């Protein structure tokens, strides 16, 4: 579509479901455009033709405006189409038809002021025990390193690494306030609400690196709550997952220490 070319229109869509979102946005905007132009033309025409001038008097008789009635009915019908034809089915599909658990990669995300903490279960597919008591600077979600399941877990802050061409499910939860998990290029947006765990799903069609943004005002540094989604080929992702395992013993502090 013509609009899609402009860099000041929608960002690239690399998701499998996003086309339905874009389609609706584009169709709606064409509809709006037509409505506004047609309506505006009539408006301007009236302003010019019926401007006060010598020898011109107003005609108080109401015009039988059939056209306007038809126009209004037309608008109503088109809105109904947008609603029932596009929006409702797409919404049901995007938000509620989740991919099969075994096909998908599930990641846990815990938002806090002002960071996204991602937790991968690793090769064994089981998440290690987490306990806030264990939270320390190197361990943002308090992963229990004593738990055998933790050994192959991966924890990242703000960086969501995912394989391309595989459905991803992200379990969203928040430590403190309401955030909103938004990946524009994947057409994913979901409020993250404390006390609730809300899943979202998506599948990337292309590799690349893009922004994750917080769409809900969450405090002083809301604007700084920017993450990155890194979409890799499956094998690269596997490599990465292997290399990022939590079991990284520390060196003695002799060199590192400074007061």
């Amino acid at each position, binding site marked *: 579509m013509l609009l899609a070319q402009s860099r000041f229109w*929608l960002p690239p869509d690399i998701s499998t479901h996003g086309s339905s979102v*874009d389609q609706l946005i584009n169709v709606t905007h064409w509809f*709006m455009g037509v409505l506004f132009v047609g309506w505006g033309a009539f408006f301007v025409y009236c302003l010019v033709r019926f401007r006060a001038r010598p020898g011109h*008097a107003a005609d108080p008789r109401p015009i039988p405006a059939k056209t306007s009635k038809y126009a209004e009915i037309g608008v109503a019908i088109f809105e109904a189409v947008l609603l029932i034809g596009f929006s409702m089915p797409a919404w049901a599909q995007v938000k*509620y038809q989740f991919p099969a658990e075994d096909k998908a990669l599930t990641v846990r995300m815990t938002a806090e002021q002002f960071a996204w903490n991602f937790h991968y279960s690793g090769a064994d597919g089981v998440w290690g025990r987490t306990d806030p008591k264990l939270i320390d600077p190197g361990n943002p979600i308090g992963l229990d390193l004593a738990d055998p399941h933790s050994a192959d877990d991966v924890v990242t802050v703000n960086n969501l690494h995912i394989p391309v061409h595989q459905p991803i499910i992200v379990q969203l939860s928040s430590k403190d306030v309401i955030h909103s998990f938004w990946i524009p290029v994947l057409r994913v947006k979901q409020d993250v609400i404390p006390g609730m765990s809300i899943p979202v799903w998506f599948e990337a069609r292309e590799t690349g690196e893009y922004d994750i943004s917080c769409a809900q005002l969450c405090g002083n540094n809301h604007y700084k709550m920017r993450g990155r989604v890194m979409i890799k080929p499956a094998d690269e992702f596997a490599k990465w997952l292997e290399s990022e395992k939590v079991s990284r013993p520390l060196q003695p502090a002799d060199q590192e220490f400074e007061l």
Partner: protein
Amino acid sequence: MSAAAAHAPHDHASPHGHAPSFWRHYVFSVDHKVIGVQYAITGLIFLFVGFCLMMVMRWQLAYPGQPVPLIGKLLASDWLGAAITDKQTGVLLPEGYNAFGAMHGTIMVFMAIVPLVVGGFGNFVVPLQIGAPDMAFPRLNMLSYWCYLPGGLLMSASFFLPGGAAQSGWTSYAPLAVISPGQTVWLFSMVLLITSSLLGSINFIVTIVQLRARGLTFMRLPFFVWAQFVTGFLLLLAFPPLEAAAVMQLMDRLAGTSFFMPEGLVISGKLAEWTGGGSPLLWQHLFWFLAHPEVYVLILPAMGIVAEVIANNTRKPLWGYRSMVYSAIFLGFMSFVVWAHHMFMTGMGTKLSAFFQTTTMIISIPSVIILTALVISLWGGSIRFNAPMLFATAFLPMFAIGGLTGLPLALTTSDIHLHDTYYVIGHFHYVVAPGTIFGIFAGIYYWYPKVTGRMMNETLGKIHFWPTFLCMNGIFLPMLFQGLVGLSRRTYDATVYEAGQLVQGMHVGISWAAWTLAVAQIPFIINFFISLRSGRKVAENPWEATTLEWAAPSPPPHGNFVTEPVVYRDPYDYSPPGRSIDFLPQNKPQEA
């Protein structure tokens, strides 16, 4: 009917003859006209304050991290409750940006627009248009102003109290609002402002129902009165839930209850003390149950003003007056069942979302009807393009854009991308800024002669209109594209994001448009004040209008009408067929 008015139209004496003291007359007045003016002036001042906050924010948005010119250091002074800018550099701080943002929204909605359109125009014009000597409850009317003013002042004072002003947006979502500084004062001021609106709305409804002049049936009411009537009901029924919500949020902050606070929050690494397991979404439901009708509170009266001005300056009756009235009423009803379309991204189920996007689609129809009726009213008219008419006509396309851009936001699926982006900001500002505010300007130019007995200067009016019109679009049109590109709203520094870097240029343009808009208001301010002294003196009906307010002297005396008006015809009997004159006032008998 006031005895005083009968014998001394122009002497502002109380019915008992003796002139009231300065205080009774101008400060604690019970005269709807004085109160109306009080509301309007206070509202305009707050409008200016809210605009100033935004102009500072626009600097940060256009030039992130650059010291705010002139006042940069001032905003870090110790007498502020919390520093807005950095003391050394004078750079606007994120917390300062959030505080300004929250206060801009709150001030504009609750302390500027509503008091202007309802408190100001409503108070002054409604009793006149229905031929009443005053509002039904003059003392209540005064009380409502004296709840509004302290509320507004307290809200403004919060900048100087410990913790500074509220920082959680005008929506004050819990839990953020509950843990943020300054919110307590915000809530207390809101309770005052809400009380003021409640008292006002009761007064309006009773006045319109009980005090209409003889012969003024409901279907003969000017559309402006209808708009105020519906607005009255919206305020009456929508505000109490917010009051309840405010009380609960206060309890959460001060008494440690957890209405809106889930259990086990870890705030900045520390366990929070709320253990009741409350619901953050409860706040949003209560808030939007108010705040959506509130949108129509903002727009309906403006539509009313525009209808008056258009009817008057096309010199012909409004087209489809009745359908407009029914639409307004329907709008009022529907506005109570669309609120959750602000919450589509909270994880709403298919059924609920289906319901709310359907109701939202339905509510768009009456707006379309009103707008269409107003445009078709132009057909066959003899349009005078004076200052009020310029703003009134400009209102139509601006409101059209505002309404149309609401469409993709109302559809859940497209809302996935557009929710909480600059698209939303562009959308609702098109409705309230070039929309309602144009309506307000139209109203000021239109009724100024009625209030002061003098005209405002036409030339200055036109000089005011054109740049204002251009700047408004220069500000809000780019925002729609910033939103489509994918820029989150309430972003202190857009350049943090790739999308933001792409549209940073627009931010610069918008800011300059905003500052130019400020300059463009100077002719208006000059006009407003010099016309008080040197404006052309006029008789009661300078616009040759038909509605009742023009039957009263300008300015109307205490008690409004010299002789009790009686209504013989529909509100907009312009260019009656087969007659020499081009207008017949409502109170003129046929044979006249």
